[in-house]
């Protein structure tokens, strides 16, 4: 008992802090969703039957799925080069992974705007080179949002992947090569399957993180590719319909919780023989 009480005391302040900053506000939102403007599940009914809201949900899911696939795939390559490269290459990649953390979301979104917009660098170059006659629209649409979000999220996918790749027993790869397997085969049949738990972990982090994105879609989507977080913002601060905003938030939270539960179950090392 004495052994238990010590960490409990140390953890206490953190638990209180998390409770105050997460649980209490969430309970508040839960209450709004069933009390504003009047008690009942009316707001949920409204949210789930409004075609606009449903289309935003659907778009959010679609964008997040694509962003997750793009970020995790890109992060896999980056991590592979990072973990298995020489010292110089490793340092260089480390630098590239860490730098984005020092630059705000806003700055990066505007950076992409400067690159991708109709009068941006890429369109100007391509037009002056004669490759394009009309500017390619790469922002104010889902493409821009996906590019901006993926760029932001890649570093977050790198860390779970790196830990999976680092924990992999080098000798297993040597064993495969010794049995005559070439690099390609070793990668596809041994390395990738063995790092799959890391891939799922990275995908989960990226996907959940992406669901709550607000600034990047707002800037690079230009109001056309509204995602769920922006919608909540609009319902709460502009309409204002606090009850509806709260209900959308709760639906999102419930979705995330379900997804995490399902994935945790899938990732846990199976006891099936």
């Amino acid at each position: 008992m004495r052994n238990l009480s010590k960490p409990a005391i140390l953890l206490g302040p953190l638990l209180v802090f998390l409770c105050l900053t997460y649980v209490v506000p969430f309970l508040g939102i839960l209450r709004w969703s069933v009390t504003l403007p009047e008690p009942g599940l009316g707001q949920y009914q409204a949210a789930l039957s409004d075609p606009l809201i449903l289309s935003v949900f659907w778009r959010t899911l679609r964008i997040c799925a694509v962003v997750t696939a793009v970020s995790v795939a890109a992060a896999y390559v980056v991590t592979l080069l990072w973990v298995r490269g020489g010292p110089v290459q490793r340092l260089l990649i480390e630098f590239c992974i860490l730098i984005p953390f020092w630059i705000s979301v806003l700055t990066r979104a505007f950076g992409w705007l400067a690159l991708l917009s109709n009068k941006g660098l890429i369109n100007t170059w391509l037009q002056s080179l004669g490759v394009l006659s009309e500017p390619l629209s790469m922002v104010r649409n889902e493409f821009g949002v996906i590019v901006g979000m993926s760029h932001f999220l890649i570093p977050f996918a790198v860390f779970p992947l790196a830990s999976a790749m680092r924990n992999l027993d080098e000798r297993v790869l040597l064993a495969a090569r010794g049995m005559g397997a070439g690099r390609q085969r070793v990668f596809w049949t041994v390395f990738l399957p063995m790092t799959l738990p890391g891939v799922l972990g990275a995908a989960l982090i990226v996907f959940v993180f992406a669901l709550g994105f607000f600034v990047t879609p707002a800037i690079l989507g230009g109001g056309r590719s509204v995602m769920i977080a922006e919608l909540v913002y609009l319902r709460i601060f502009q309409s204002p319909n606090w009850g509806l905003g709260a209900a959308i938030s709760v639906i999102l939270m419930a979705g995330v919780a379900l997804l995490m539960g399902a994935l945790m179950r899938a990732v846990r090392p199976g006891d099936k023989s």
Partner: protein
Amino acid sequence: MTSGRVASKGSQMLDKVTAGEIGAEGIGKTFGHFTALDGISLTVGRGEFLTLLGPSGSGKTTFLMILAGFEAPTSGRLTLNGLDVTRTTAEDRGFGMVFQGYALFPHMSVEQNIAFPLKVQKRSAAQIRARTDEMIEMVGLGGHGHKKPAALSGGQQQRVALARALAYEPPVLLLDEPFSALDRNLRGQMQDEMRRIHRDTGTTFVFVTHDQEEALALSTRVAIFNHGRLQQIATPREIYDHPDNRFVAEFLGDINVLPLASVVMQEGAAQAVFEDVPLRVALDGRDPTEAVAVRPEHMHLALARPAEGNAIPASVREIVFLGAETRLTLASPGGQPLVLSIPSEAVPAGLVPGAEVWVGWPEDKGVFV
């Protein structure tokens, strides 16, 4: 092979494979300024069971990795069946390898692990099936084929690693301390199994171990490494009876090393002096050195000076009864400790610590080291 021997499980099923002959000429390996291997030259004959033995850090694993092709030597040449393979990649050499810790594919079942090298070789599904079953049977894992490695005990994982490494009939099987994680009992069992598998497959084995008994029990020849140098390579018997140098003598088993005051040559034998006592040492082709080594079990105890062979006076320090054998610790007049291992019934009745006795040994049992 005697005709009366009962064929063990695997022997009828496995064809004798074409075992490889390895040649290493002056293999050296440096890591930065550190020399891990220095001019290793040896050959491993077809179907031989060679054990690499040496203290930690002596370069055994490094040498094995170079044989497998996972590391390139800094200098020297490697041949397989007379062909230069120094620059051949690990996948093209295709040596079987069993690592310490087994290195099984954790996401594949036992069957899939064993089938892996066969799939690499693009054998037909039916062949793969048959061979996998055969190997599972050979290592005694029938009924475990669908399990993942994590669901197996250490000994069972060890067998899977062995089956996987042998499934595709590699010309050479390399094993790096494959039993180090097993308990004593299981080790003994696996050693018997290893001997059987070596006999049945006829493959060339190169085996690394820390365990001297294991090395002596399994190998056709033993190579002793120290500080990246090959100290001696010979049959277990030869190494035990005629160690080439003091390191080998002291490393393998117990031995008494007696420093000599002087040595003179006389009639093909050497006349040496140990603490005023004259000794005769057989030369068997070597040059005299300043010490002679004698195994504890080659020495005997006498209450009076023996007429034959070498003998030095000593006083008994300690008597330890070990069952069939008794271990005696003695000291010469000059204080040199001596260890004897004699059959318990040969211990004179009433022998107690402090007794003054003679320690003798035949001339041909002492070697210069």
